[in-house]
């Protein structure tokens, strides 16, 4: 029954092995990821991730805070989709204390989540250009992301770690200018996304760098626990918004972007498509935000009954799971965050084996790793 064959995990076997440390401070690891790669010339023979450089034990810290307090920490996990992280925590707590969220709050949450996804993908697009050696996309991506962050700043007060979604709804009501600004931004962005295509998508060098690189098959993607755009690029249907809808995603019309090639270019295409879908979702909602409360009435101190709840949310990077266990007191007994990037890092070796160093960089760029999310 044991189909398991132990692989030799020792990286340096002889003096001839050429082992290079990529990271913890390296321009293309987007943070403090440390990879040990074994090379033969330019070809990668083995990749070994070393994690923990930014481990803050958010799960342990969450056990110390109350149910209202712990979710602000999750903004610091995947800081590029902090809204969705907060949303996942809020959903878990709401499930536990059985609170019905008002319609208006749900719509605001979706709007914010999709704007976050847009901003995250814009940053990814820019950073990916940077990884592949083109520096200009970085600035163009950031220019558009900046506008979204300004919208966030208006409503939430903060640009990156918002802590806007709280159990029971959202923290404060939308800014009066919110709708106007979002509509104006979408109008501009729909024109600008063509620039993205001009500069990168059609570019022959970019295509050569990404097509057929870092291929992961559908079975492997599932087995490695890949989710989000990475799994969808391999043809796995895994959009939580479709499969297990939350906060009213079931009422919206949008497409789950699926490619089948499973290479870097497919992942790129999926994310580009997702941006367009996010724009569509926002357009469906922005003109008819229901009136009403933005927050349900909840008790001051939240005390869920004994039990455990699991919520799954589609962040910009994939599936975020929050596993919340309560022992009946006012503090969570155990919180586990299933972060998408953690699984993607484990799939890194499978994807990049046999490729060149340049391929490794391209793969890491299209996996869209956020290291604080890996280490937590």
């Amino acid at each position, binding site marked *: 029954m044991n189909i398991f064959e132990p692989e030799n995990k020792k990286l340096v076997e002889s003096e001839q092995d050429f082992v290079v440390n990529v990271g913890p401070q390296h321009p293309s690891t987007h943070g403090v990821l440390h990879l040990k790669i074994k090379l033969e010339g330019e070809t990668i023979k083995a990749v070994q991730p070393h994690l923990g450089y930014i481990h803050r034990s958010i799960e342990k810290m969450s056990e110390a805070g109350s149910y209202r307090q712990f979710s602000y920490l999750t903004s610091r996990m995947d800081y590029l989709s902090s809204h969705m992280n907060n949303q996942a925590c809020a959903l878990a707590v709401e499930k536990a204390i059985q609170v019905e969220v008002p319609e208006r709050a749900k719509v605001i949450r979706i709007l914010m989540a999709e704007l976050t996804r847009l901003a995250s993908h814009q940053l990814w697009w820019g950073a990916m250009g940077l990884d592949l050696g083109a520096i*200009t996309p970085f600035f163009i991506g950031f220019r558009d992301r900046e506008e979204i962050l300004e919208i966030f700043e208006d409503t939430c007060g903060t640009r990156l770690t918002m802590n806007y979604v709280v159990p029971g709804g959202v923290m404060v009501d939308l800014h009066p200018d919110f709708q106007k600004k979002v509509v104006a931004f979408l109008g501009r962005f729909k024109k600008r996304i063509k620039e993205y295509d001009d500069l990168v998508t059609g*570019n022959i060098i*970019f295509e050569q*760098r990404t097509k057929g690189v870092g291929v992961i098959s559908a079975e492997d993607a599932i087995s490695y626990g890949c989710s989000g755009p990475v799994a969808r690029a391999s043809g796995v249907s895994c959009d939580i918004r479709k499969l297990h809808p939350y906060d009213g995603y079931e009422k919206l019309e949008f497409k789950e972007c699926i490619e089948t090639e499973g290479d870097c270019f497919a992942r790129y295409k999926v994310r580009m498509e997702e941006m367009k879908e996010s724009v569509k979702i926002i357009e469906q909602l922005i003109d008819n935000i229901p009136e009403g409360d933005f927050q349900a009435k909840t008790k001051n101190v939240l005390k869920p009954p004994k039990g455990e709840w699991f919520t799954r949310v589609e962040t910009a990077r994939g599936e975020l799971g929050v596993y919340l266990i309560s022992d009946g007191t006012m503090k969570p007994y155990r919180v586990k965050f299933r972060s998408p990037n953690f699984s993607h890092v484990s799939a890194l070796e499978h994807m990049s084996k046999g490729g060149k160093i340049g391929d490794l*960089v391209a793969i890491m760029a299209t996996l869209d790793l956020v290291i604080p999310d890996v280490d937590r």
Partner: protein
Amino acid sequence: MYDFSGVTRGIHEFLSGHFSPLGVTLWEMVIAGVVLLLSLVLIAFTLGYMERKVAAFMQLRLGPNRVGFRGTLQIVADTLKLLFKETFVPQAADKMLFNLAPIIMVVVTMLSLAPIPFTETLQFYDMNIGVFYVSAVTSIGVVGILMAGWSSNNKYSLLGAMRSGAQIVSYELSAGLSIIVIVALSGSMQFSEIVQSQANGWWIFKGHIPVWIAFVVFLIAGTAELNRAPFDMAEAESELTAGFHTEYPGMRFAMFLLAEYLNMFILAAIGATLFLGGWMPLHIGNLEGFNKVMDFIPPLVWFMGKTFLIVFIIMWFRWTFPRLRIDQLLTLEWKFLMPISLVNLILVALAVILGLHF
């Protein structure tokens, strides 16, 4: 109309009045050297400033604008900063080669500047094998890179140096072949004669399609020889942090930078001389008035204008394109540029032999 020979003659006569003939020669060499060095530093500063501004405007930024008028002195400030930095040598490095590498890079670059005609009279040494000399000397630069990469005792540096070696050796071929096109057309390897052969029209206009192809090939191969994006495999910031000069601090690093910018200038100057007529003004057929106006612009301005145009194109490449992978880089050379330029050369040779060119 504009002539530097008066100035040089004046200096020569002034010196002859005070020194023996040997002393005059020595002094003249010193003066030429100082002028050369100063102009090189000036050129490198200009290019550094230009690169920053071009990059900034292409990236929706303002670029340097704090030090000096519109940031013109920023590069001077940076140089001063690099000068004051500690110049350490890594413990495990091969100290002699480590210190020698940047010097080789800069010396080679300066050597290759000798035969380039800035104007008809402003030329350091007009040798009859100028083109050959330049392509021979510039390829020594790779030795400097290999030395830097190997002696740093750093794996990134070594990888970068090896990449650069493979790259420069391959791209030398198509760059050379595209230069030979012009040599075949003008029938000389002497830069001054090549420029003179373009008196009735630049090669890019006279030579039609083969010269256009040669020009494009020259631009691509030249960019690759410069180790600049999209061919910056030797540095490849996101892959190898800084490639062969990862370990170099302070002024030694600045020398690599100086060499890079000067190489870019030299490449652009060669391109301008061979394809765009060097210091020759633009003349259009029989438009006498137009030609007169064009003649009025000093040759040095013509030369610099053309050179900086090519420099701008190279910068434009850099700030637009992603980097190639090392195997694609070699594929581009051996499967595309090399066959194309070979066929092109045969076409040109036939045209020259049959007297078909204009």
